[in-house]
């Protein structure tokens, strides 16, 4: 089972090392990890995708909570949420193939962000399934390079998570 954890942390140097160290030391598997600061510059949000059964997940959450600089941990995958990844793919694009590639980009609502003599860079956002399908569609043309972010996620509706927990305004 994969779970998406939304983790609010103090924006201190070293906090990433603490979280990463915790995962490696205790043998938890990280699928992806994305970090960036929140609207409050003193606080960062980590979105961590972990692989493991309920028992592992429970330990991961509890151990994360023990880190002093971790303020809030929520398992976002238990609730309705939106998640996104972003991918940049540099694909071989001889002039005669460009039309086809642009059609694929259209289908996935991807954007062409660079055009070289023999290559193109495409940018696509979406959930994991879409990104995977996009990658597969481009593979036959020859993928030269692929860079993707980790997943980021947010609860749907008026509920939101902040340092005080998950809440909803009237």
């Amino acid at each position, binding site marked *: 089972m994969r779970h998406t954890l939304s983790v609010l942390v103090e924006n201190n140097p070293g906090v990433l*090392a603490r979280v990463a160290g915790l995962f490696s030391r205790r043998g938890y598997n990280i699928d992806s990890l994305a970090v960036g600061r929140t609207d409050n510059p003193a606080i960062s949000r980590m979105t961590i995708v972990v692989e493991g059964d309920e028992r592992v997940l*429970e330990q991961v959450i*509890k151990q994360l909570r*023990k*880190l*002093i600089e971790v303020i*809030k941990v929520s398992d976002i995958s238990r609730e309705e949420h939106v998640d996104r990844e972003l991918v940049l793919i540099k694909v071989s694009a001889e002039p005669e193939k460009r039309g086809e590639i642009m059609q694929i980009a259209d289908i996935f609502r991807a954007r062409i962000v660079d055009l070289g003599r023999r290559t193109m860079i495409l940018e696509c956002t979406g959930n994991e399934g879409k990104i995977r399908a996009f990658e597969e569609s481009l593979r036959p043309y020859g993928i030269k390079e692929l860079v993707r972010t980790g997943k980021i996620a947010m609860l749907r509706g008026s509920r939101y998570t902040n*340092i005080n927990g998950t809440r909803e305004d009237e």
Partner: protein
Amino acid sequence: MKKSGAQIFVDCLKEQGVDTIFGYPGGAVLPIYDALYESDIRHILTRHEQGAAHAADGYARATGRPGVCLATSGPGATNLVTGIANAYMDSVPLVAFTGQVVTSQLGRDSFQEADITGITMPITKHNYIVKDVRDLARVIREAFYIATTGRPGPVLVDIPRDVSGAQIEYQDPGPVNLPGYRVATEPRPEDLARAVELIARAERPVIYAGGGVVNSGAHLELRRFAEMLLAPVATTLMGLGAFPGDHPLSLGMLGMHGSKYANYAVCECDLLIAVGVRFDDRVTGKLESFARQARIIHIDIDPAEIGKNVRVDVALVGDARRVLSLLIERLEARLPGAWQEKIATWKKEYPLTYEENGRLKPQKVIREIYYATQGQARITTDVGQHQMWTAHYYTFTRPRTFISSGGLGTMGFGLPAAIGVQVACPDETVFDIAGDGSIQMNIQELATAVHYNLPIKVAIMNNGYLGMVRQWQEFFYNRRYAYSELVNPDFVKLAEAYGAVGMRVEKPAEIAPALQEALATPKPVVIDFIIEREENVMPFVPPGQPLNCMLG
């Protein structure tokens, strides 16, 4: 008011009530040493930084107050590492300060630079490097707060030399504010109700108590709780003294080197009430067979301990003392029945014994130490057979009197820990029951004991072996004693060379007189007990076996 970083350091320590620190100087801590020189904080110069960390650890275990140690950057800091890990494994409140190279030289492999916050990340509850002197007071307050609250543990604060040397207009940082740090104190009412129900239904309850009872100061509540339920109490190594060892309900220690009756009781109980413990593999043996017939109630202040190794039926997350009081309020006293009888039979049938054959038996030596000190001494140990014999044959009746390296199993802990204990308890008798192998790992601390005239008594159980290793080789490696035999120095002469008193005991009849003489000597004394060489710790559960499969 203008203050230097070093002055802030001293003032913050005093504000925390620190009266003693254990340390070793060097370039990166010179500003701090200069400020300490004119303060009224007592500084004990150990002869190795590991000794400073263990001494601070012993001080903390004996008193419940945070132990403080101080070392310079680089090698000074790395020498603390074993001591910090030791405190971490046994949840000891320790605050370790290290000097660091000046901030402008950080990250350049400068002379005596070591990334000590990186190194100690997995063995501290939290750690800091202070890069701005304006953060120093806040960080020190947080460090003590974190080390001493909730589940205690070591915190390290790394202070670059230019930070301790800087002058600032001092502004008080105010009270500690840590949004990500919360300490559970109250269990949920519904869990409490479930626990009460399970207890009421249980016919064969056993209490499994550990170091958390000592840390929380819950020993009186534990006793009351056990007496109400008439539930026998097995303790872990860390829990020795949390329940009186001479109490009729005491089962002594459980686990790999536990008593047979403790292990049988755990195997046969229908309810296991675990208090301040972590289901360590040395306690549970083969996990799948541990307390197989029992429902389990787990009381602990650290939510991450719940369900870590063993699935439990009810978790009461909170301070052990508080949780036990809540349970006591809700329970009714019981009358003895078949279970208590069964326990009594086991105790009669399988007592801890050893063969007396006229030679010097370590068990007898430890029993004699118990008699000579009326069971009232503070005992530290090293790690090995002598540690287990001490756990078996010195009956501990009060918390904080058995001070031993449990989780990390650090040879060389005993002597420096005894120094910390004696500094904390100047009017009490402190014995270090040491191994002939272990003592040599921090033997230099004899100089510290002599330097500060600390009248600790070191009883070396000299078997000429790394005995615990030899025992395993005897049982599991066909008596192939690969590199476990020792060629030892003359410990009597060694003690004398350090300025301590040295004595040797080779016959049973010499034990009591030697102990009397040692106790009457107001100086550090080393007694070299030449014990039966191949004596084993019995009974014991081979690793990976269920608790009722005991050898011996």
